[in-house]
């Protein structure tokens, strides 16, 4: 079987298209590359969905945590505390079993027990909490002078936030937020190892990599392939976030740092 045929058979296997049976013997290098790459579709899906939706909630959480009214501050603080203070792995397990028992009572929750929605929901809340904390830290370090200048121009309320405070917050938070994005993509590999079932063997990249490692009892081929894919993905994330960061800083005379500098912000 040529590599092209393998690509046709297994290229979209993770979504359920193509050959139904996974390879069982005589594993070729090409099969491993194609299937693990096919699984990357799920990692990218989970990462993108959580990142884009989480961004909005993160902004709300940051503003909420900075609010003076306890009605906004307390809920935001608790969401951030709960999702940052416990392991994502346990969150996945808990959420899956929670959805499972909800489904037992209300059938409408059926979709939540499958990974594409349930796991995406957990990742969304998780990344929103982590990024919310980053944005909050940035919001607290917006220079006072900028806010005073906005006041002097007669800006207030929503206009001041949208045109002065928020852009500066993003600018300050961007290096740390880039790191969060990278770790979010890494965290997507946990999904199929934490309760959420891979129905009909439609799994993510790590699912297929461990499938091959189990079958061939040789971890030295599938895991390096997976690592290669993830290093590539990480480079793409850094490049895209770098472009956005450059755009955020485009009016500044000397471009502000686009890469993370401090060492406290390196990981989640």
């Amino acid at each position, binding site marked *: 079987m040529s590599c092209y045929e393998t690509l046709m058979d297994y290229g979209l296997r993770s979504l359920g298209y193509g050959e139904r049976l996974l390879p069982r013997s005589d594993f070729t290098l090409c099969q491993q590359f194609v299937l693990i790459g096919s699984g990357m579709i799920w990692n990218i899906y989970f990462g993108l969905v959580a990142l884009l939706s989480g961004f909005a909630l993160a902004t709300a959480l940051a503003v909420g945590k900075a609010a003076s009214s306890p009605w906004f501050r307390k809920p935001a*603080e608790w969401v951030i*505390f709960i999702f940052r203070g416990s392991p994502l792995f346990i969150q996945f397990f808990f959420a899956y079993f929670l959805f499972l*028992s909800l489904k037992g009572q209300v059938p409408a929750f059926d979709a939540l027990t499958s990974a594409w929605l349930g796991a995406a929901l957990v990742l969304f809340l998780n990344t929103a909490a982590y990024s919310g904390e980053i944005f909050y*830290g940035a919001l607290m370090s917006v220079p006072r002078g900028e806010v005073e200048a906005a006041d002097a121009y007669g800006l207030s309320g929503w206009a001041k936030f949208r045109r002065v405070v928020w852009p500066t917050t993003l600018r300050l938070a961007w290096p740390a937020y880039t790191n969060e994005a990278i770790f979010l993509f890494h965290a997507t590999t946990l999904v199929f190892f934490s309760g959420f079932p891979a129905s009909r063997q439609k799994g993510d990249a790590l699912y297929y990599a461990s499938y091959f490692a189990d079958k061939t009892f040789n971890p030295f081929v599938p895991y390096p392939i997976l690592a290669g894919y993830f290093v590539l993905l990480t480079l793409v994330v850094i490049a895209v976030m770098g472009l956005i960061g450059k755009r955020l800083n485009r009016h500044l005379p000397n471009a502000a740092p686009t890469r993370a500098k*401090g060492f406290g*912000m390196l990981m989640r």
Partner: protein
Amino acid sequence: MFASCADPETLSGLSWLTCYLTTGKHIAFYWAFGTVLLLLAVTAPVALAFGFGGAMAARSRIAPLSWLGKGYIAVVRGVPDIAFFLFFVIALDQGIEWLRHKAKCPDWDQPIRQGNDFIVCAEAKMPLSSSAQWVHEVYGFWLAVFTFALVFGAFAANVLFGAMRAVPRAQTETAEAYGMSRAQVFRRVIVPQMWVYALPGLSNLWMVLIKASPLLFLLGVEDIVYWARELGSTKTPQFTAYPHGDWRMWYFLFLLVFYLGFTRISEIVLDRIMRRLTHGQATLGSHKRTGPVGMSKAGPP
């Protein structure tokens, strides 16, 4: 456990719960928390040592050594940690058996990899197939510790590498002016001074380590996640004296609360240490409690 638990069918309410929560399997579940704490207590210093080695290699003047150090940091940071866990558990096991095979069975003529099998002679098995169950468990635990240390060592190396570079140039310059060699400058000036710069990163790393500890489950250790799944699943009267429905949700809620408490306590303790270390020092941490972006502490005060 208690004498009154002899006949569970007659129990109800609180006494049933007391008896249920003290069954032999639940005691094993509580011991598993000890396993997790032991893993953390052992891994943290080992990872720090690995990190120190990695950081020293990365700032070495010998190019290959520096590439090795930087490569170690970059590869581990660029790839999901769970992939490393799954990889190293098999790779280390096979590596150890391969070395023992080479040493103990020199006149073995068959290839070790035969198709999909990895075959070494019986004396090279690790642990020996004749050894007791607890030997297997201890061996599995140490493989897990080593894997954790290897992965988190890279993160620690990254933190320490940054901290070593954060020591003000004027300090090392002064030391050079006193005629100290490179090694002396490192030993007498950089290492004593870097800790305060490393602490925010290291305390963050400790939090990440705590939150990675449930991944022990993936390494085949019977840890709290294993027991929570085991004990929580539906039990029918045929197999147990304490039948119940699917309680896994509650068991995982308990784990969630355990971890929330654990990270919260760590946070408070680390905050105290940081305040003590930066006492009287002209760093950002000394006059402002929250650090730079992304470092401020989470949670309700």
